[in-house]
């Protein structure tokens, strides 16, 4: 990665201050981040098509379809590492994709730097919360919990 050489523009404005100051770029390009973010949106988009429509198909169309969805249905899916992984990938990709999309929208529409900053703080906090909680739920979910030594057994739980 060779940095571009300093070539003074014909009517260099950094000395004359001719360009209205609010238009001057602060420099500080964050390496490849914007390129990778752009690429990620497209790649995660492709994967999300498969994940989301697979998810909708299995939940809403297969077998009894939408009528089969209840606590037990979800519990059954999450007993299988395949669906755990599927839902985890969907959670992470959709959250990162959606967060980056909203980050772009904030960049495009927020005019003041302070507004931009605080909107992003709220966005990233919300993302972190949902991703952490979601991941925790997928991995620690127990459909037949033991609370105060009492087994809460449903008909789909293995016999004690």
């Amino acid at each position, binding site marked *: 990665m060779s940095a571009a050489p300093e070539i003074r523009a014909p009517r260099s404005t950094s000395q004359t201050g001719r360009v209205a100051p609010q238009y001057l770029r602060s420099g500080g390009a964050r390496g490849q981040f914007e*390129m990778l973010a752009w690429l990620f949106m497209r790649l995660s988009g492709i994967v999300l098509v498969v994940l989301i429509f697979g998810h909708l198909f299995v939940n809403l169309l297969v077998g009894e379809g939408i009528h089969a969805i209840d606590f037990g249905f979800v519990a059954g899916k999450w007993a299988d590492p395949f669906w755990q992984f599927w839902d985890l990938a969907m959670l992470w990709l959709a959250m990162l994709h959606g967060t980056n999309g909203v980050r772009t929208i904030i960049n*495009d529409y927020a005019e003041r730097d302070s507004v931009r900053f605080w909107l992003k703080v709220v966005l990233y906090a919300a993302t972190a919360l949902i991703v952490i909680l979601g991941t925790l739920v997928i991995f620690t979910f127990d459909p037949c919990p033991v609370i105060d030594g009492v087994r809460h057994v449903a008909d789909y739980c293995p016999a004690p």
Partner: protein
Amino acid sequence: MSAATAEPASKVELPAGSSGGAVPSFDITLRVRRYDPEVSEEVRWDDFKLTMYGTDRVLDALHKAKWEHDGSVSFRRSCAHGVCGSDAMRINGRNRLACKTLLKDLDTSKPILVEPIKGLPVEKDLIVDMEPFFQSYREIMPFLISKGHEPTKERIQSVEDRERFDDTTKCILCAACTSSCPVFWTDGQYFGPAAIVNAHRFIFDSRDDAGDMRLEILNDKEGVWRCRTTFNCSEACPRGIQVTKAIAEVKQAILARQF
């Protein structure tokens, strides 16, 4: 007369088959956004009621307003024939060249709105400060950079190699594209379509050796990745350059260079 040329249908009835007769005339209201900081910080709209001809353009209406009604109306124009790029403005909400927009193609039953292009500081009336626009243009180094010895004759290029960047050679730097881009409107930090179009013109020129440098410049966080493919620029370009396509090609060239 060929019916195949798809000009916008005339909104003013011109008698069919009239040849050699007087050019038909009609009345219009030209509504110009006025701003003169030496007089007032307030923006106002002035209406000019003008009798114009079927062959007149918005630029002619502006001339008539300035020359016959109010000499203080300020705007830029030079060639008056769509070549110099100095009279891009917002006409009925769309970025056009005043010298290429025929009045008969507009709805003359309503006032014709004329405003300065958006996103650049207005200096007076329709005149904006173009320096931020040209600064981005300069930054992409819009000149041939070639390694090795200077040839004694011209730098020969095949027809195919010339064709590769033909579209982007047509730019007249009018700023209609950059000032139609909502990303540029927000904070003016984005390099903007025109700078990318002119970088494209050299990046894909087989005689030029500084393509990598220009790609590096446009890989900035305010570079090509800020493009949201809204196509406003392609629609605005009076030269019919496929601006969004050129931006996409530069994005791909940056990616191709990385991976």
